[in-house]
């Protein structure tokens, strides 16, 4: 792929001005968006700077396109070679828009055949978290357990590989990552008692090269003696010994979040979701490596290190949120860090070479644990908030099982401010676990009233700026509803996010002053991007279309099915005044 000279110059000047260097293999021109999280480090930061706090007030919509689908519009578009690629929620149409022509008409669209049974097996709405571009191919997952590679120029399907099994409760909404010739994918199904895994496919042919489970014996987890070294946990077979006999075989451990990669260390990082069932009494032990971060070699999948954020998870604290790779000064020393805002309410700053926890501080109100003990890496538990069938209905646990931040709402990092920008939830829950049996293809949860929001404030969410060197909040914008969009940070020092009631917003990255907003027609649960148009101007793009977990929780925002009529959620009784489901791609410019 040849780069325009100006882009190369820009990239070089950025690299030299942003010392210490970021951990990103940045070969693409900054005016493009070729992978889900912008770069391998998952920063969601763009070097584009035409839009600034001074100019953003004239930001306005220049284009919109209805995707023709309802269902939560999570994920983000790609922009490569003046083409915008959009993957819709089920049925996972891939649109390719020509950004050089007036009105951005389609070059082509690809309409895969996706099994509609996936609709009922996907726990959390029929979302898709995006595609990835490499070597002339657009690669993404269909909800029903297939990964497809499409020729980026012609729209022709190059390969279609079945990676997951719907009948086992596996679905595949996550966005793949491509590292050299390896396509990395995983499956959802923590609510269905799957045996969670990651797979590495060959980019050219789509063939499955390796499969690594996240739980179970070392032979399946690919934890090899001499290669695998966890910072805090000693011994072998940890993925098996921390479960009752055979419980790991239906132990969940899904992969539904974001992947990042450090090319110097040659490590792919990802978070593993919840253990199954939700009734923790049925799986005594730490249940490794659920609710953990794993670091693997992309070539052969071997596990290099692992750390568990929430041992014996009893609250559905999936660790699927992004692992952002930045070099940060911590306690006076520059560290190769990994930053992760966990569902459990703690932000972790870790050494990404070894898995040591350097900083761990709550970024929302947390009461299931008082702190993370940095000597052991383990949470100090509040026994009053432990759950399980034996404990009945445990009330007022904070945060909720939606997390202090959802993994579906990825953060952005700005090397200009050295701050992270996160969409957070301020809610608490009651949790009543019950005994349950595993029946393949049906939910394996064991939870009677999983969710009841209680909150000590009228603001159910906030968009925050956070210093991960010290574990402190820099500023916050309180929001009426939980904030569920991803974040975008730019060198122009403007950050972007969207709200459930359908506002797309811009704020000053340093001060948190709200600078601009626009009502985009449906709640925002996707991730904004920015790119350079064919005319050299900076553009912002975002999806509108409420859904994801929020579709399950908000009751009455669905208008399209006369046979499915629900009460409003008791903690957000008037959300449906502001949004129904929708599906629109928006592009804004100055």
């Amino acid at each position, binding site marked *: 792929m040849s780069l325009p000279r100006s882009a190369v110059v820009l990239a070089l000047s950025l690299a030299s001005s942003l010392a210490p260097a970021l951990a990103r293999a940045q070969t693409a021109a900054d005016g493009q968006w070729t992978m889900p999280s912008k770069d391998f480090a998952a920063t969601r930061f763009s070097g584009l700077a035409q839009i600034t706090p001074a100019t953003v007030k004239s930001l306005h919509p220049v284009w919109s396109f209805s995707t023709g689908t309802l269902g939560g519009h999570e994920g983000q578009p790609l922009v490569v070679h003046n083409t915008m690629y959009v993957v819709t929620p089920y049925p996972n149409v891939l649109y390719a828009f020509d950004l050089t022509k007036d009105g951005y008409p389609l070059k082509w669209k690809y309409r895969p055949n996706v099994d*509609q*049974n*996936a*609709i*009922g*097996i*996907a*726990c*959390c*709405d029929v979302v898709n978290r995006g595609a990835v571009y490499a070597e002339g191919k657009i690669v993404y997952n269909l909800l029903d357990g297939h990964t497809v590679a499409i020729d980026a120029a012609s729209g022709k399907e190059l390969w279609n590989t079945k990676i997951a099994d719907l009948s086992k409760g596996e679905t595949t909404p996550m966005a793949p990552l491509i590292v050299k010739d390896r396509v990395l994918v995983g499956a959802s199904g923590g*609510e269905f008692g799957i045996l969670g895994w990651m797979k590495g496919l060959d980019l050219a042919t789509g063939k499955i090269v390796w499969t690594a489970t996240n739980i179970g014996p070392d032979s399946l987890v690919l934890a090899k003696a001499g290669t695998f070294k966890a910072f805090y946990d000693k011994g072998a077979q940890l993925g098996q010994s921390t479960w009752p006999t055979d419980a790991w075989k239906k132990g969940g451990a899904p992969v539904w979040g974001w992947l990042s990669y450090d090319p110097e260390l040659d490590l792919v990082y990802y978070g593993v979701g919840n253990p199954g069932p939700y009734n923790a009494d049925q799986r005594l032990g730490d249940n490794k490596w659920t609710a953990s971060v794993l670091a693997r070699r992309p070539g052969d999948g071997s596990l290099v290190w692992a750390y568990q954020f929430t041992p014996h998870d009893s609250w559905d604290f999936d660790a699927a949120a992004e692992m952002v790779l930045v070099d940060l000064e911590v306690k006076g020393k520059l560290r190769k860090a990994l930053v992760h805002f966990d569902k459990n309410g703690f932000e972790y700053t870790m050494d990404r070479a070894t898995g040591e926890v350097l900083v761990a501080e709550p970024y929302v109100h947390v009461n299931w644990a008082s702190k993370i003990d940095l000597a052991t890496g383990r949470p100090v538990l509040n026994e009053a908030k432990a759950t399980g069938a034996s404990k009945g209905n445990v009330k007022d646990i904070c945060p909720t099982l939606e997390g202090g931040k959802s993994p579906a709402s990825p953060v952005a990092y700005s090397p200009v401010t050295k701050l992270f920008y996160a969409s957070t939830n301020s809610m608490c829950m009651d949790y009543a676990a*019950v*005994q*349950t*049996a595993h*029946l393949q*293809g*049906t*939910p*394996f*949860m064991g*939870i*009677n*009233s*999983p969710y009841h929001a209680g909150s000590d404030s009228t603001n159910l969410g906030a968009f925050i700026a956070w210093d991960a060197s010290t574990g402190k909040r820099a500023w916050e914008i309180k929001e009426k509803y939980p904030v569920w969009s991803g974040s975008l940070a730019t060198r122009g020092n403007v950050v972007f996010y969207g709200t459930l009631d359908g506002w797309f917003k811009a704020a000053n990255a340093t001060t948190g002053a709200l600078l601009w907003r626009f009502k985009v027609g449906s709640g925002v649960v996707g991730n904004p991007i920015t790119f350079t148009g064919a005319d050299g101007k900076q553009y912002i793009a975002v999806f509108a279309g409420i859904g994801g977990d929020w579709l*399950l929780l908000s*009751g*009455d925002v669905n208008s399209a*099915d*006369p*046979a*499915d*009529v*629900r*009460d*409003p959620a008791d903690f957000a009784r*008037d959300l*449906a*005044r502001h949004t129904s489901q929708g599906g629109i791609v928006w592009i804004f410019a100055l």
Partner: protein
Amino acid sequence: MTHLSSRLVCALAIIVLAASACREQTDVPATATTGGASENALVISKHEGRIFAGGIAPPAERVSNSAAHDAKAADEGASLFTSMNCDGCHGGGAVGAVGPSLTDGRWRYGGADANIYRSIAEGRPKGMPAYGGVLQPAMVWRLVAYIKSLPPPKDVSTEAW
């Protein structure tokens, strides 16, 4: 569509169906399976909402809930609703989550006992699993009794703020 049209259909049928399908149907104790019928028999349960080509209802076996008059049936169905993981998709109390609400008085595939029975036993498009392979009919009927016991709200069509 009542007994009269069933008889008409029986009289007019050119396709050979099982003799049992043309019997006068009242309350057949329900195994909604073909018990006793010939291999070629199709058991079609009536769906009031359907439109009939030619205005003629196909031969139908009227099936109803053997557990309907059993006071404990709905309670047992409530336990099954949890133990068979129905609440994992339809939400506790069947208010809707991944799967649609079962308490709103609205039905995609029909709300008659037999329709709900078939939804559970045979599954439905868009991911409702078929439980007929793991649940005895008597258990399915208890689930039907539970679901039918959930009172739909008085007014579901309009929200006024």
